[in-house]
């Protein structure tokens, strides 16, 4: 059942293989392709590096120094996840056009995604045995060198995992980059698709984009293979004695304030600004409610269906570990590396060719959501399944309780929180999804994301604001979930 997650990848491979060598060569070797490759790679590399600097830096300040109001900064460092990247770039570009181009795109998109590095790194730093740092101190190393030689090497898994997520988001980011007029593979696919339906050009760029994603995944596996993550006893957990900032407290605080102002303050200020200014124009309550209703309905449907698909996959991979169940699980994760635009493009083409009846239906749209967000559901459901080892069922059977009653009275209560978390994560991802929704939603359907997009790309900033605000409000609980249970973010 999870095999359908592989449809987009299969489509891209089959398409690329069906092209003749000469045709492929002509499509690939173009100045346009070179420009897109250059833009995409410098965005991905720059974004990963900048996210690592911001994410690890914030994690260290929050977890290891005596900076005032540490909990507040933890929340503020995770909070940018509640603001979709395209809302953030709307916040900036509606105030000044100077943010267009590479630097603006790099900074703004990184501000939206650096929490993906921050959260796992901070969690890992919190779990690190402080005795290790104390030993390094007693062996003659100051706080700086201790961090470089002892702490950083152990944060590697979290840093690599976070950077991979940032890289994949950079590769698939559409709305923010389109708004900031910085063309990458993803925006080029969209433009090609809009200008000529099912064009060879779009498909070839999609193939290159998929290749980039796979390269990133392979680099991640490679880097992980080298790591030595041996945890030798947990030691006696005690509170870390924080590094005294002393006189450096002021500049550190200014940095944190600046970061939060840029990642949260600017978009929120613009939203409020445009809400106030835009209220002079009509405030179409009916349309807003309709869009919100569609978004919520789609989110709920996709959440339920995705979790239903995730359940057997997770159960098999936890309870019946075989080569087949493992590869089914892996394929689901790989599919997540595919940008929404590629999933959408593949589903459009495949459905038109083989099952034209479902083209432009909610069924196809929800299928796209399920493919894209299955891994998020899987991570939650899987960790829930691990909370319910078979021994509990054995005990229940031993007490004379039958299979169905055991499932109802023992297993289900144990995995219910994980299922709930999975549903919530998928729901919230769907309500802020833009790319696949633009390409696949039935004609006349409006969601919060598409309405926001239509208004803001026709420079109707005031009209766009209420939709953006609703999306941010709906995203808040998901951010809370991620900040509370960072492990969920690490795998999705």
């Amino acid at each position, binding site marked *: 059942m999870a095999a359908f997650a592989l449809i987009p990848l299969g489509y891209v491979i089959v398409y690329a293989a069906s092209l003749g060598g000469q045709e492929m060569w002509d499509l690939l070797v173009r100045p346009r392709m070179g420009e897109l490759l250059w833009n995409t790679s410098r965005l991905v590399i720059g974004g990963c590096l900048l996210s690592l600097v911001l994410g690890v830096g914030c994690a260290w300040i929050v977890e290891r120094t005596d900076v005032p109001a540490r909990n507040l900064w933890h929340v503020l460092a995770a909070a940018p996840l509640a603001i979709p990247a395209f809302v953030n770039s709307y916040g900036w570009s509606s105030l000044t056009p100077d943010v267009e181009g590479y630097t603006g795109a790099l900074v703004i998109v990184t501000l939206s995604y650096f929490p993906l590095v921050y959260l796992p790194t901070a969690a890992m730093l919190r779990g690190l*045995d402080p*005795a*290790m740092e*104390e*030993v*390094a*101190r*007693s*062996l*003659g*190393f*100051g706080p700086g060198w201790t961090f470089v*030689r*002892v702490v950083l*090497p*152990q944060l*590697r898994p979290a840093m690599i995992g976070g950077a991979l997520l940032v890289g994949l988001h950079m590769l698939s980011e559409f709305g923010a980059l389109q708004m900031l007029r910085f063309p990458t593979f993803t925006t080029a696919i969209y433009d090609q698709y809009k200008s000529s339906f099912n064009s060879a050009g779009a498909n070839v760029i999609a193939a290159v984009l998929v290749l980039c994603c796979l390269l990133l995944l392979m680099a991640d596996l490679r880097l992980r293979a080298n*790591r*030595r*993550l*041996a*945890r*030798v*006893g*947990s*030691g*006696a957990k005690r509170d870390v*004695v924080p590094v005294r900032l002393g006189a450096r407290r002021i500049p550190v605080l200014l940095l944190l304030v600046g970061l939060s102002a840029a990642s949260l303050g600017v978009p929120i200020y613009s939203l409020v600004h445009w809400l106030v200014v835009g209220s002079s124009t009509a405030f179409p309550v009916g349309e807003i409610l309709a869009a919100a209703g569609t978004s919520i309905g789609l989110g709920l449907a996709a959440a339920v269906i995705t979790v239903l698909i995730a359940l057997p996959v997770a159960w098999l991979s936890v309870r019946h570990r075989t080569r087949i169940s493992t590869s089914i699980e892996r394929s689901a994760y790989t599919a997540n590396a595919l940008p929404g635009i590629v999933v959408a493009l593949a589903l459009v083409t495949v459905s038109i060719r083989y099952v034209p009846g479902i083209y432009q239906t909610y069924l196809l749209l929800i299928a796209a959501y399920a493919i894209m967000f299955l891994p998020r559901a899987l991570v939650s459901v899987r960790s829930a399944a691990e909370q319910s080892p078979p021994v509990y069922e054995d005990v229940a059977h031993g007490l004379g309780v039958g299979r169905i009653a055991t499932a109802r009275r023992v297993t289900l209560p144990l995995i219910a929180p994980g299922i709930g978390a999975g549903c919530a994560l998928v729901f919230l991802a769907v309500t802020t999804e833009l790319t696949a929704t633009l390409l696949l939603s039935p004609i006349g359907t409006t969601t919060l994301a598409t309405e926001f997009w239509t208004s803001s790309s026709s420079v109707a900033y005031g009209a766009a604001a209420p939709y953006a605000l609703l999306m941010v409000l709906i995203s808040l609980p998901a951010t809370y979930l991620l900040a509370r249970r960072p492990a969920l973010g690490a795998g999705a």
Partner: protein
Amino acid sequence: MSGLKITGVSKSFGDQLVLDQVDLEIPNGSIVAALGPSGGGKTTLLRIIAGFLDADAGSISLGGTSLISGGRGIPPQHRGIGYVPQEGALFPHLDVAANIAFGVRGRRFDVDEMLELVDLDASLKRRFPHELSGGQQQRVALARALAPRPSMVLMDEPFSSLDAGLRVETGKAVIRALRAADATAILVTHDQDEALALADQVAVMRDGRIAQLASPEELYRAPVDAAVAGFVGSVVILPAVISGQTASTSLGDIRIPAGKPDGTAQVLVRPEQLVLGAADAGVRAVVDDVSFFGHDATIRLTLVDSGLKVEARVPGTDVPAVGDAVGITIRGAGSVLGAAPQ
């Protein structure tokens, strides 16, 4: 040579006083065990000496150099004090050789020599921490602490995570290495057997103070009070009337050290000093309860004349049954509680 000198060190967490005016002097090359129940302040004292915590008051000097004076002191990386935490905390990303060499800078250095010092095979040096047993990890952690030739080594419950057999063996190897390196060391532990077996001096810590600092033998034989006595082993405490070097008790006359004032006092003997014999030889008692351990057995008895309950430890080869009538005689001297240690 002056070793470690601690004067009047105090530390509070919030309104809880953890260290209360602690004084302690440790000569060079001596190994001191800080023994006490959890919450007694021993780990806090260790962390203040290492420099991980600042004291509220007091001063500490090492080899004549002041480490702290009235609060904050020089940072841990400049103190030259080795530290072995619980479970070793070996750096998981470095192999054994790199772990040991971590703190050594600017001189030629032989990892094999350090491994030999802690009684480990040189073939282990390319292993990673997770490939070592718990005892091996502890020894590598000690080698790492000793490698930069510190003036002192601090060990925080280094053997508590090891199982019983390994604990004794590792403890002995660690002490041998410390002696070979001629290191001054403090070993924090809550295990009295470990403290008595391994250290030159034992500092019993209680309620943020050092209740007694003495050699293991003296601590066992002449504890300052009933609580310290109870902490380093089982006790039999008897009301007594002192007259010269004799204490009259319900277990008969017991020899005590000279210099105690005459009058009433409490006298302590250890259960293994009670010898059980035939009912007509010695103070008559009835066996209430027997706990058999193989090598020996603990017998609870009630004295027939006074009704006092006492405990005796007898060899496992000669154990009376519950209800038996026996006669008790005392072997060796007792000590008087409540007086200053001799």
